[in-house]
């Protein structure tokens, strides 16, 4: 067996086309990994710099204040989702969903949908990351490496002779295609492993990712082998394989996406903001009681302190901010649930496309899938709730202003990946 493999290895190195495809795979893998690492490092650098600037800005904002309401109005708090140590391989939704916010005590619905997105062209065309390379480009390279193993021998007139001398059919084709498959896997995975070591990704995650690449490309190997057996011209085999690739890697995912988006409509996002804004702004024109009632329904503990006597009081101001969020809450919930439903449906639909399955699995490992982005939003909501829990006692009990107490302001800590 070893002799057969090394013989096939020598054959492969003499096939110029095969060497070109393998070199291309290696170069693309290096490029994908290098750009991926550069991007996550830049994102980490941005976050580190912002954490410092944010603290300085908040200290500056608090310095001039003389009451709790003013502090809560002026102090912004940075929230963020740092890229995981595996994100370099699959940047996923980080180009489409925000991973940075600065929130304050005002109605959260007006702040959390803020899109700190990058250049729109990025989201339109997409990045060349390792997940895209292995899911979409690598199968095509594998097809180019393997489609004419048999038919080329047929064209050369050696096919039957080869089989006769080798005895069993498998003894010829298996080592030949295994060598090529193995070489492609190495060309793709070696840069990936080096990158993972540089980024300090967990070995278990890297092993799972490598296994998925192996299995998914194994599926493509099987498909290529099946269709490559047919006794037709190599060009016909290649055309068929390209058609299969196109269907599995491009058309089915796109059709599934369109069908899922149609099947699970997402509420018009703008409506969330409109509701929140109408509620918040109408508060100035309606009796204070009309604001305090729905607020106290959520927070009965402040009922004793909730009489508003003057036209403007901070506790009333923050109460109507919260009531604005309450008004938009059903719609915001629907928006979140619809996104999760779409993602769950996409997870099922991905079973028909090895390319989608691989990319989604990578994004899942990297914490860059829709679920992770929604989890980040949940973390921002939880943090905002902690801010309210911090300020409400101070505002409602009308505690004397004491900047020293601000030492205990809740701090945002990102979820560990």
């Amino acid at each position: 067996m070893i002799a057969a493999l090394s013989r096939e290895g020598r054959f492969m190195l003499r096939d110029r086309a095969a060497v070109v495809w393998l070199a291309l795979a290696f170069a693309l893998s290096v490029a994908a990994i290098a750009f991926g690492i550069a991007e996550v490092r830049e994102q980490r650098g941005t976050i580190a710099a912002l954490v410092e600037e944010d603290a300085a800005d908040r200290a500056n904002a608090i310095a001039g204040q003389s009451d709790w309401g003013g502090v809560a109005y002026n102090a912004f708090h940075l929230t963020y989702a740092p890229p995981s140590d595996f994100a370099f391989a699959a940047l996923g939704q980080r180009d489409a969903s925000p991973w940075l916010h600065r929130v304050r005590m005002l109605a959260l619905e007006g702040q959390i949908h803020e899109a700190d997105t990058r250049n729109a062209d990025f989201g339109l065309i997409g990045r060349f990351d390792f997940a895209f390379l292995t899911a979409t480009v690598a199968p095509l390279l594998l097809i180019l490496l393997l489609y004419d193993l048999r038919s080329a021998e047929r064209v050369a007139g050696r096919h039957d002779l080869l089989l006769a001398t080798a005895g069993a059919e498998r003894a010829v084709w298996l080592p030949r295609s295994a060598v090529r498959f193995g070489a492609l896997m190495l060309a793709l995975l070696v840069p990936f492993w080096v990158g993972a070591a540089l980024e300090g990704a967990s070995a278990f995650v890297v092993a799972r990712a490598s296994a998925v690449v192996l299995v998914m490309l194994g599926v493509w190997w099987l498909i290529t082998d099946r269709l490559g057996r047919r006794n037709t011209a190599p060009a016909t085999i290649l055309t068929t394989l390209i058609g299969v690739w196109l269907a599995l890697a491009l058309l089915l995912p796109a059709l599934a996406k369109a069908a899922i988006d149609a099947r699970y409509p997402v509420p018009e996002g703008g409506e969330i903001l409109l509701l929140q804004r109408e509620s918040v702004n109408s508060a100035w024109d309606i009796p204070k009681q009309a604001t305090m009632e729905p607020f106290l329904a959520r927070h009965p503990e402040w009922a004793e302190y909730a009489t508003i006597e003057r036209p403007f009081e901070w506790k009333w101001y923050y109460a109507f901010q919260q009531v604005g969020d309450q008004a938009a809450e059903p719609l915001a919930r629907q928006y979140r649930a619809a996104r999760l439903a779409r993602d769950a449906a996409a997870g099922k639909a991905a079973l028909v496309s090895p390319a989608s399955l691989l990319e989604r699995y990578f994004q899942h490992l990297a914490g860059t899938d829709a679920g992770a982005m929604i989890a980040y939003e949940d973390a921002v909501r939880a943090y905002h709730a902690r801010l309210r829990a911090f300020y409400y006692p101070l505002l409602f009990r009308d505690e004397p202003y004491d900047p020293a107490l601000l030492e205990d302001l809740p701090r945002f800590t990102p979820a560990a990946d």
Partner: protein
Amino acid sequence: MSTAIRIAHEEWRLWLRSRMVVAAALIVAVLIAATGALTMERLTTQAKQRAAQQEAAEAAFFAQPDRHPHRMVHYGHYAFRLPPPLSVFDPGVDMVTGQSIFLEGHRQNTAMFADAKASANMGGFAALNPAALYQLLLPLLLIIIGHGVVLRERESGTLGVLLAQGQSALALAGGKALALLGVVALFMLPLALMAAYGVAAGEAAGPAIALVAGYGLYLMVWAALVLAVSTLVRSRSAALGVLTACWLAMVLVVPRLGINAASALVDAPGKIESDLVMLSQERKLGDGHNASDPAFEQLKQDLLDQYGVESVEELPINFRGVVASYSEEKLTGLLNEFAERRMQSEARQSEVFGRFALASPTLAVGAASRALAGTDLATHHRFLRETESVRFGFVQALNEMHATKLSYIDDARRSVDPEAEARTRVNAQAWAVLDRFRFAPDPPAERFARAFGPLTLLAGWLAALAALVVYAARRLAP
């Protein structure tokens, strides 16, 4: 010439007899028809919806009750980006950027709720739309149909016979080119229909024609590449391999590497990042809500001197309104400076990424297509600029009211004195200061100017490949 037509005719006859070619063409035809119809339906609905939302937003603003004008500054307004008629073919960045923006005092918000954020994630590709099919799929179909145009003759031995009969190799290549051009012409029909629909929906004829011409050029580039490879390479499967690799590189790899490179080479800080830098500068400008902020001392002194009075209470105008207007103007200058910087670095990124079009005609045609359809990044930036001027317009008009219609004493006491509060409410008829906003695509000339570079590049590709075809044909031997 008649030889060329005869050769092309023969080629077509063979194609029509090939089940694979006919099946592939039918599948693509169905795809184009289906995505075309779906995209058209989706964008036409969205255009109507957003126009209705824009009117509703204005109606809501006008219908607000009597209020303190500053409340209306915070009540704010919504602006919607209406999709241009040709977006039914190429929706461009429409999916990726938010389509509506909330306009209020003291802030520039981002456009929120992009479709892409909430859409089902199937990995790799953006949603299919007609433009994507033209950019990605039709070249592949051309490859599958055309890679054997010359090789077929070579492999069946007819090439030698043809050349031996004194048929000139150039005429042969001309005939094959004509056959491929016929395919390209057929491919252009659905696009021509969609462009006509765009014109019927109010688009100028110029950009619509240029769009069709641009894609014609693009597909001709691919036809020339297919013909050149088919003439130069010795076997059908090798030609198909080379062409597939070209497709892979130009359509899938180079554009995305361009994005990576643009992102790595040009640092474009996100909005939150640049806002933080800005905020620290903003604090130096003073808080416009607080007229006793020391930053406004100079302003106060100037006004007192101008009216020859001793205190702000004696001024014939409301000092608080003056401060609001003054600080909004200062702040807007700062906001615009940072927004402009951000947009410029994005434009620089797109420029870097545009340079990759030298290696990928797909990038070139995509850029030209979005520019002509009015769905490119530059159009989105213009939307942001125009909405900003709407924002500044109504906010300053309201601040003007604040300064001239309200008494300073009432205004200062409104937080504690309900009667003073009631006197600071302005009659709701004043809300008519809001400008009507209808976003429209750039005039055709500007869109041509943006599409000119990429289209020239495509023409360059075509000229180079045509030269290659001639060179290959001259060396053609059985």
